[in-house]
Protein backbone atom coordinates (compact mmCIF):
# COMPACT_ATOMS: atom_id res chain seq x y z
CA UNK A 1 0.00 0.00 0.00
CA UNK A 2 1.17 3.48 -0.77
CA UNK A 3 1.34 6.35 1.67
CA UNK A 4 -1.73 7.78 -0.05
CA UNK A 5 -3.57 4.51 0.50
CA UNK A 6 -2.72 4.64 4.18
CA UNK A 7 -3.82 8.24 4.42
CA UNK A 8 -7.14 7.61 2.68
CA UNK A 9 -7.75 4.45 4.64
CA UNK A 10 -7.21 6.14 7.96
CA UNK A 11 -9.35 9.11 6.99
CA UNK A 12 -12.11 6.81 5.81
CA UNK A 13 -12.08 4.65 8.93
CA UNK A 14 -12.01 7.69 11.16
CA UNK A 15 -14.93 9.26 9.31
CA UNK A 16 -12.93 12.21 8.11
CA UNK A 17 -13.87 11.98 4.44
CA UNK A 18 -16.83 13.84 3.03
CA UNK A 19 -19.60 11.92 1.28
CA UNK A 20 -18.09 12.16 -2.20
CA UNK A 21 -14.62 11.14 -1.04
CA UNK A 22 -16.08 8.29 0.99
CA UNK A 23 -17.90 6.97 -2.03
CA UNK A 24 -14.77 7.21 -4.13
CA UNK A 25 -12.83 5.31 -1.51
CA UNK A 26 -15.52 2.64 -1.27
CA UNK A 27 -15.35 2.13 -5.02
CA UNK A 28 -11.60 1.74 -4.67
CA UNK A 29 -12.22 -0.73 -1.88
CA UNK A 30 -14.16 -2.98 -4.22
CA UNK A 31 -11.16 -3.24 -6.48
CA UNK A 32 -8.52 -3.54 -3.79
CA UNK A 33 -8.76 -6.61 -1.54
CA UNK A 34 -5.73 -5.42 0.43
CA UNK A 35 -7.61 -2.28 1.44
CA UNK A 36 -10.67 -4.37 2.19
CA UNK A 37 -8.58 -6.46 4.58
CA UNK A 38 -7.62 -3.34 6.49
CA UNK A 39 -11.24 -2.23 6.74
CA UNK A 40 -12.12 -5.73 7.90
CA UNK A 41 -9.35 -5.56 10.50
CA UNK A 42 -10.85 -2.35 11.85
CA UNK A 43 -14.33 -3.90 12.00
CA UNK A 44 -12.96 -7.08 13.58
CA UNK A 45 -11.10 -5.08 16.19
CA UNK A 46 -14.29 -3.21 17.06
CA UNK A 47 -16.43 -6.35 17.13
CA UNK A 48 -13.84 -8.42 18.98
CA UNK A 49 -13.15 -5.87 21.66
CA UNK A 50 -16.84 -5.12 22.15
CA UNK A 51 -17.57 -8.82 22.42
CA UNK A 52 -14.74 -9.30 24.89
CA UNK A 53 -15.95 -6.38 26.97
CA UNK A 54 -19.46 -7.79 26.95
CA UNK A 55 -18.17 -11.19 27.98
CA UNK A 56 -16.23 -9.53 30.78
CA UNK A 57 -19.44 -8.12 32.18
CA UNK A 58 -19.70 -4.50 31.10
CA UNK A 59 -19.33 -2.29 28.10
CA UNK A 60 -16.33 -0.56 29.55
CA UNK A 61 -14.68 -3.50 31.20
CA UNK A 62 -11.18 -4.35 30.15
CA UNK A 63 -11.46 -6.60 27.11
CA UNK A 64 -8.01 -7.91 27.82
CA UNK A 65 -9.20 -9.25 31.11
CA UNK A 66 -10.83 -12.33 29.71
CA UNK A 67 -7.80 -14.44 30.42
CA UNK A 68 -8.29 -14.18 34.14
CA UNK A 69 -7.04 -10.71 34.88
CA UNK A 70 -8.35 -8.89 37.93
CA UNK A 71 -11.43 -7.03 36.66
CA UNK A 72 -13.45 -4.23 38.19
CA UNK A 73 -16.28 -2.71 36.12
CA UNK A 74 -15.70 0.96 35.50
CA UNK A 75 -17.47 3.73 33.66
CA UNK A 76 -14.30 5.42 32.53
CA UNK A 77 -12.24 2.71 30.88
CA UNK A 78 -9.45 5.05 29.97
CA UNK A 79 -8.53 5.22 33.61
CA UNK A 80 -9.67 1.85 34.63
CA UNK A 81 -6.94 -0.67 34.11
CA UNK A 82 -4.27 1.13 36.14
CA UNK A 83 -6.84 1.63 38.83
CA UNK A 84 -7.70 -2.02 39.05
CA UNK A 85 -4.04 -2.86 39.08
CA UNK A 86 -3.35 -0.33 41.76
CA UNK A 87 -6.26 -1.56 43.81
CA UNK A 88 -5.09 -5.10 43.54
CA UNK A 89 -1.69 -4.05 44.76
CA UNK A 90 -3.29 -2.92 48.00
CA UNK A 91 -2.38 0.70 47.82
CA UNK A 92 -4.75 1.70 50.54
CA UNK A 93 -3.73 1.46 54.17
CA UNK A 94 -5.93 3.03 56.78
CA UNK A 95 -4.35 5.21 59.39
CA UNK A 96 -7.19 7.45 60.56
CA UNK A 97 -9.26 7.15 63.67
CA UNK A 98 -12.78 5.77 63.56
CA UNK A 99 -13.15 5.07 59.85
CA UNK A 100 -10.39 3.56 57.86
CA UNK A 101 -9.73 3.48 54.17
CA UNK A 102 -8.78 -0.09 53.80
CA UNK A 103 -8.59 -2.85 51.27
CA UNK A 104 -11.49 -5.25 51.46
CA UNK A 105 -10.44 -8.87 51.07
CA UNK A 106 -12.12 -9.30 47.68
CA UNK A 107 -12.17 -6.07 45.79
CA UNK A 108 -12.31 -7.24 42.23
CA UNK A 109 -15.60 -9.08 42.30
CA UNK A 110 -18.04 -6.26 42.98
CA UNK A 111 -16.15 -3.08 43.65
CA UNK A 112 -17.52 0.17 42.34
CA UNK A 113 -15.40 2.91 40.88
CA UNK A 114 -15.54 6.47 42.08
CA UNK A 115 -13.50 8.65 39.81
CA UNK A 116 -12.51 12.21 40.64
CA UNK A 117 -12.41 13.96 37.31
CA UNK A 118 -9.64 16.51 37.28
CA UNK A 119 -10.73 17.88 33.95
CA UNK A 120 -13.81 19.44 35.48
CA UNK A 121 -13.94 22.61 37.45
CA UNK A 122 -12.76 22.23 41.00
CA UNK A 123 -15.90 24.04 42.13
CA UNK A 124 -18.28 21.57 40.57
CA UNK A 125 -19.00 18.50 42.64
CA UNK A 126 -18.75 15.19 40.87
CA UNK A 127 -21.95 13.31 41.57
CA UNK A 128 -21.71 9.59 42.11
CA UNK A 129 -24.21 6.93 43.02
CA UNK A 130 -22.73 4.65 45.60
CA UNK A 131 -24.26 1.42 46.82
CA UNK A 132 -24.00 0.46 50.47
CA UNK A 133 -23.14 -3.15 49.84
CA UNK A 134 -20.11 -2.88 47.61
CA UNK A 135 -16.65 -1.52 48.31
CA UNK A 136 -15.68 1.60 46.41
CA UNK A 137 -12.45 2.06 44.50
CA UNK A 138 -11.70 5.75 44.66
CA UNK A 139 -9.38 7.19 42.04
CA UNK A 140 -8.04 10.66 42.68
CA UNK A 141 -5.65 12.87 40.75
CA UNK A 142 -2.42 13.79 42.48
CA UNK A 143 -1.29 17.13 41.10
CA UNK A 144 2.39 16.77 41.82
CA UNK A 145 5.24 16.89 39.35
CA UNK A 146 7.69 14.95 41.46
CA UNK A 147 7.09 11.47 42.75
CA UNK A 148 5.45 11.48 46.13
CA UNK A 149 3.35 9.45 48.46
CA UNK A 150 0.06 11.26 48.52
CA UNK A 151 -2.03 11.74 51.61
CA UNK A 152 -5.66 11.27 50.74
CA UNK A 153 -8.46 12.28 52.99
CA UNK A 154 -12.18 11.89 52.46
CA UNK A 155 -14.28 14.16 54.65
CA UNK A 156 -18.01 14.00 55.20
CA UNK A 157 -19.98 16.24 57.58
CA UNK A 158 -20.56 14.69 60.95
CA UNK A 159 -18.23 11.78 60.38
CA UNK A 160 -14.60 11.13 61.15
CA UNK A 161 -12.44 11.48 58.05
CA UNK A 162 -11.11 8.58 56.05
CA UNK A 163 -7.36 8.94 55.71
CA UNK A 164 -4.72 7.00 53.86
CA UNK A 165 -1.57 7.35 51.83
CA UNK A 166 -1.05 6.05 48.31
CA UNK A 167 1.48 6.24 45.49
CA UNK A 168 0.07 7.67 42.24
CA UNK A 169 0.29 5.60 39.07
CA UNK A 170 1.96 6.64 35.84
CA UNK A 171 -1.02 8.81 34.92
CA UNK A 172 -0.88 10.70 38.18
CA UNK A 173 -3.82 9.00 39.80
CA UNK A 174 -3.84 7.34 43.20
CA UNK A 175 -6.25 4.52 43.89
CA UNK A 176 -7.67 3.70 47.27
CA UNK A 177 -10.37 1.32 48.37
CA UNK A 178 -13.19 2.26 50.69
CA UNK A 179 -15.07 -0.44 52.54
CA UNK A 180 -18.70 -1.07 51.68
CA UNK A 181 -21.00 1.31 53.54
CA UNK A 182 -18.22 3.64 54.64
CA UNK A 183 -19.53 6.49 52.49
CA UNK A 184 -22.89 8.01 53.27
CA UNK A 185 -25.12 10.04 51.04
CA UNK A 186 -24.46 13.78 50.84
CA UNK A 187 -21.49 16.01 50.28
CA UNK A 188 -17.95 14.74 50.57
CA UNK A 189 -14.63 16.44 50.12
CA UNK A 190 -11.56 14.62 48.85
CA UNK A 191 -8.33 16.31 49.93
CA UNK A 192 -5.07 15.27 48.32
CA UNK A 193 -1.66 16.49 49.39
CA UNK A 194 1.97 15.57 48.94
CA UNK A 195 4.55 16.40 51.59
CA UNK A 196 4.21 19.94 52.81
CA UNK A 197 2.45 21.17 49.69
CA UNK A 198 -1.01 22.66 49.70
CA UNK A 199 -3.82 20.18 49.50
CA UNK A 200 -6.00 19.98 46.42
CA UNK A 201 -9.67 19.65 47.21
CA UNK A 202 -12.27 17.89 45.13
CA UNK A 203 -15.92 18.05 46.18
CA UNK A 204 -18.01 14.97 45.54
CA UNK A 205 -21.71 14.48 45.91
CA UNK A 206 -22.55 10.99 47.07
CA UNK A 207 -25.97 9.75 46.09
CA UNK A 208 -27.20 6.45 47.52
CA UNK A 209 -27.74 3.94 44.72
CA UNK A 210 -31.38 3.05 44.32
Amino acid sequence: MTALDHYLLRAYLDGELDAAASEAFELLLLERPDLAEMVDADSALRLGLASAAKAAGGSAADPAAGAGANVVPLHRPARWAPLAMAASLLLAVGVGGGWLLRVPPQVAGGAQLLYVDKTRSGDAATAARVGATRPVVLMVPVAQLDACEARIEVQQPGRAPLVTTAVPDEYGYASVVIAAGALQGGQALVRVSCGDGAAAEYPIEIKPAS
Partner: protein
Amino acid sequence: MADADTESPMQGSGASFDALMRCVPGLRALLLRMTRDVEATNDLAQEVTFAAWQAIQAGRLRDAAALPAYALQCARNAALAHARKPRPATFDELPEAESAWAERQPTPLECCEEGEIRALARQVLAELPTERDRALIRGFYVDGRGKPELMAEFELGKDQFDRVISRARGRMRELMLEKLNAGKRAVGGSAAAPLPFRSNTGASR
Protein backbone atom coordinates in the same frame (compact mmCIF):
# COMPACT_ATOMS: atom_id res chain seq x y z
CA MET B 1 -24.59 -25.71 -25.51
CA ALA B 2 -22.21 -22.85 -25.07
CA ASP B 3 -20.01 -22.43 -22.04
CA ALA B 4 -20.76 -19.71 -19.57
CA ASP B 5 -17.54 -17.96 -20.53
CA THR B 6 -18.57 -17.47 -24.12
CA GLU B 7 -17.29 -14.05 -25.01
CA SER B 8 -19.83 -11.29 -24.75
CA PRO B 9 -19.07 -8.16 -22.82
CA MET B 10 -20.31 -8.44 -19.23
CA GLN B 11 -22.83 -11.14 -20.05
CA GLY B 12 -22.15 -14.22 -17.99
CA SER B 13 -18.54 -14.45 -19.09
CA GLY B 14 -15.86 -16.03 -16.92
CA ALA B 15 -14.04 -12.73 -16.97
CA SER B 16 -17.05 -10.90 -15.63
CA PHE B 17 -17.52 -13.52 -12.96
CA ASP B 18 -13.89 -13.11 -11.95
CA ALA B 19 -14.36 -9.35 -11.87
CA LEU B 20 -17.37 -9.80 -9.64
CA MET B 21 -15.52 -12.17 -7.32
CA ARG B 22 -12.71 -9.64 -7.00
CA CYS B 23 -15.25 -7.22 -5.58
CA VAL B 24 -16.38 -9.61 -2.86
CA PRO B 25 -13.73 -8.80 -0.22
CA GLY B 26 -14.51 -5.10 -0.56
CA LEU B 27 -18.24 -5.78 -0.53
CA ARG B 28 -17.94 -7.81 2.64
CA ALA B 29 -15.82 -5.15 4.30
CA LEU B 30 -18.35 -2.46 3.44
CA LEU B 31 -21.30 -4.54 4.55
CA LEU B 32 -19.65 -5.42 7.84
CA ARG B 33 -18.86 -1.79 8.42
CA MET B 34 -22.46 -0.88 7.70
CA THR B 35 -24.16 -3.67 9.64
CA ARG B 36 -21.60 -4.51 12.37
CA ASP B 37 -23.00 -8.02 12.11
CA VAL B 38 -20.91 -10.87 10.75
CA GLU B 39 -23.82 -13.20 10.05
CA ALA B 40 -25.81 -10.52 8.28
CA THR B 41 -22.70 -9.64 6.30
CA ASN B 42 -22.37 -13.24 5.12
CA ASP B 43 -25.97 -13.30 3.93
CA LEU B 44 -25.98 -9.85 2.41
CA ALA B 45 -22.67 -10.35 0.61
CA GLN B 46 -24.14 -13.38 -1.14
CA GLU B 47 -27.34 -11.51 -1.86
CA VAL B 48 -25.51 -8.57 -3.40
CA THR B 49 -23.11 -10.73 -5.37
CA PHE B 50 -25.86 -12.79 -6.86
CA ALA B 51 -27.93 -9.74 -7.61
CA ALA B 52 -24.99 -8.28 -9.50
CA TRP B 53 -24.45 -11.57 -11.28
CA GLN B 54 -28.07 -11.70 -12.35
CA ALA B 55 -27.79 -8.14 -13.62
CA ILE B 56 -24.77 -9.13 -15.68
CA GLN B 57 -26.50 -12.16 -17.10
CA ALA B 58 -29.65 -10.24 -17.89
CA GLY B 59 -27.62 -7.70 -19.79
CA ARG B 60 -28.49 -4.84 -17.46
CA LEU B 61 -24.83 -4.30 -16.68
CA ARG B 62 -22.84 -4.13 -19.87
CA ASP B 63 -19.90 -1.96 -18.94
CA ALA B 64 -17.32 -3.76 -16.82
CA ALA B 65 -16.14 -0.46 -15.40
CA ALA B 66 -19.58 0.10 -13.93
CA LEU B 67 -19.50 -3.10 -11.90
CA PRO B 68 -17.95 -1.66 -8.68
CA ALA B 69 -20.41 1.24 -8.64
CA TYR B 70 -23.32 -1.11 -9.25
CA ALA B 71 -22.14 -3.48 -6.53
CA LEU B 72 -21.60 -0.62 -4.11
CA GLN B 73 -25.14 0.65 -4.66
CA CYS B 74 -26.51 -2.88 -4.24
CA ALA B 75 -24.58 -3.20 -0.98
CA ARG B 76 -26.00 0.04 0.35
CA ASN B 77 -29.52 -0.97 -0.61
CA ALA B 78 -29.06 -4.37 0.97
CA ALA B 79 -27.70 -2.90 4.20
CA LEU B 80 -30.61 -0.47 4.38
CA ALA B 81 -33.10 -3.24 3.72
CA HIS B 82 -31.42 -5.33 6.38
CA ALA B 83 -31.83 -2.54 8.89
CA ARG B 84 -35.55 -2.46 8.15
CA LYS B 85 -36.30 -6.16 8.38
CA PRO B 86 -35.28 -8.80 10.90
CA ARG B 87 -33.76 -11.26 8.45
CA PRO B 88 -32.20 -10.87 5.03
CA ALA B 89 -33.68 -12.76 2.14
CA THR B 90 -31.94 -15.94 1.10
CA PHE B 91 -31.06 -16.85 -2.45
CA ASP B 92 -31.42 -20.57 -2.66
CA GLU B 93 -32.64 -20.47 -6.22
CA LEU B 94 -29.10 -20.35 -7.55
CA PRO B 95 -27.60 -23.64 -6.46
CA GLU B 96 -24.66 -23.57 -8.87
CA ALA B 97 -23.83 -20.06 -7.86
CA GLU B 98 -24.05 -21.11 -4.21
CA SER B 99 -21.47 -23.75 -4.94
CA ALA B 100 -19.17 -21.28 -6.65
CA TRP B 101 -19.63 -18.94 -3.76
CA ALA B 102 -18.60 -21.58 -1.27
CA GLU B 103 -15.50 -22.44 -3.26
CA ARG B 104 -14.21 -18.95 -3.73
CA GLN B 105 -11.20 -17.63 -1.83
CA PRO B 106 -12.45 -16.50 1.60
CA THR B 107 -11.33 -13.26 3.16
CA PRO B 108 -9.20 -13.49 6.33
CA LEU B 109 -12.10 -12.37 8.47
CA GLU B 110 -14.32 -15.14 7.15
CA CYS B 111 -11.89 -17.69 8.56
CA CYS B 112 -12.45 -16.46 12.09
CA GLU B 113 -15.25 -17.56 14.36
CA GLU B 114 -16.65 -15.02 16.80
CA GLY B 115 -14.58 -16.42 19.64
CA GLU B 116 -11.45 -16.25 17.53
CA ILE B 117 -12.09 -12.63 16.58
CA ARG B 118 -12.45 -11.88 20.27
CA ALA B 119 -9.22 -13.69 21.09
CA LEU B 120 -7.33 -11.90 18.31
CA ALA B 121 -8.64 -8.54 19.42
CA ARG B 122 -7.53 -9.28 22.95
CA GLN B 123 -4.12 -10.28 21.67
CA VAL B 124 -3.80 -7.02 19.75
CA LEU B 125 -4.71 -5.10 22.86
CA ALA B 126 -2.31 -7.04 25.05
CA GLU B 127 0.55 -6.50 22.62
CA LEU B 128 0.29 -2.72 22.71
CA PRO B 129 3.31 -1.39 24.55
CA THR B 130 1.73 0.92 27.11
CA GLU B 131 -1.40 1.08 29.20
CA ARG B 132 -2.11 4.45 27.63
CA ASP B 133 -2.30 2.84 24.20
CA ARG B 134 -4.58 0.13 25.49
CA ALA B 135 -6.84 2.64 27.18
CA LEU B 136 -6.95 4.64 23.96
CA ILE B 137 -7.98 1.60 21.93
CA ARG B 138 -10.62 0.63 24.47
CA GLY B 139 -12.01 4.15 24.48
CA PHE B 140 -12.13 4.28 20.68
CA TYR B 141 -13.40 0.81 19.86
CA VAL B 142 -15.30 -0.31 22.93
CA ASP B 143 -16.85 2.89 24.18
CA GLY B 144 -17.14 4.58 20.81
CA ARG B 145 -15.58 7.80 22.04
CA GLY B 146 -14.53 10.37 19.50
CA LYS B 147 -11.04 11.03 18.33
CA PRO B 148 -10.91 14.68 19.52
CA GLU B 149 -12.16 13.69 22.97
CA LEU B 150 -9.57 10.94 23.34
CA MET B 151 -6.78 13.12 21.99
CA ALA B 152 -7.61 15.74 24.60
CA GLU B 153 -7.89 13.26 27.43
CA PHE B 154 -4.61 11.56 26.68
CA GLU B 155 -2.93 14.76 25.62
CA LEU B 156 -1.96 13.26 22.31
CA GLY B 157 -1.27 14.91 18.99
CA LYS B 158 -3.08 13.71 15.87
CA ASP B 159 -0.02 11.85 14.61
CA GLN B 160 0.45 10.06 17.92
CA PHE B 161 -3.19 9.06 18.00
CA ASP B 162 -3.12 7.82 14.41
CA ARG B 163 0.02 5.82 15.08
CA VAL B 164 -1.57 3.90 17.94
CA ILE B 165 -4.77 3.17 16.04
CA SER B 166 -2.91 2.20 12.86
CA ARG B 167 -0.65 -0.12 14.78
CA ALA B 168 -3.63 -1.91 16.28
CA ARG B 169 -5.42 -2.19 12.94
CA GLY B 170 -2.31 -3.41 11.18
CA ARG B 171 -1.63 -6.02 13.82
CA MET B 172 -5.22 -7.24 13.68
CA ARG B 173 -4.90 -7.70 9.95
CA GLU B 174 -1.63 -9.59 10.38
CA LEU B 175 -3.19 -11.92 12.91
CA MET B 176 -6.20 -12.60 10.71
CA LEU B 177 -3.92 -13.31 7.75
CA GLU B 178 -1.87 -15.67 9.90
CA LYS B 179 -5.07 -17.43 10.84
CA LEU B 180 -6.13 -17.67 7.19
CA ASN B 181 -2.77 -19.04 6.13
CA ALA B 182 -2.71 -21.52 9.00
CA GLY B 183 -6.10 -22.76 7.82
CA LYS B 184 -4.80 -23.14 4.28
CA ARG B 185 -1.88 -25.22 5.49
CA ALA B 186 -4.25 -27.36 7.51
CA VAL B 187 -6.29 -28.24 4.41
CA GLY B 188 -3.43 -28.45 1.94
CA GLY B 189 -4.20 -30.15 -1.36
CA SER B 190 -7.73 -28.90 -1.79
CA ALA B 191 -8.82 -28.24 -5.35
CA ALA B 192 -9.00 -24.78 -6.83
CA ALA B 193 -12.40 -23.26 -7.46
CA PRO B 194 -13.85 -24.60 -10.75
CA LEU B 195 -14.19 -21.28 -12.56
CA PRO B 196 -15.76 -20.31 -14.82
CA PHE B 197 -18.96 -21.88 -13.69
CA ARG B 198 -22.06 -22.50 -15.74
CA SER B 199 -25.12 -20.50 -15.09
CA ASN B 200 -28.31 -22.44 -14.48
CA THR B 201 -30.46 -19.67 -15.85
CA GLY B 202 -29.41 -20.14 -19.41
CA ALA B 203 -29.05 -16.41 -19.90
CA SER B 204 -25.47 -16.73 -21.04
CA ARG B 205 -25.81 -19.83 -23.11
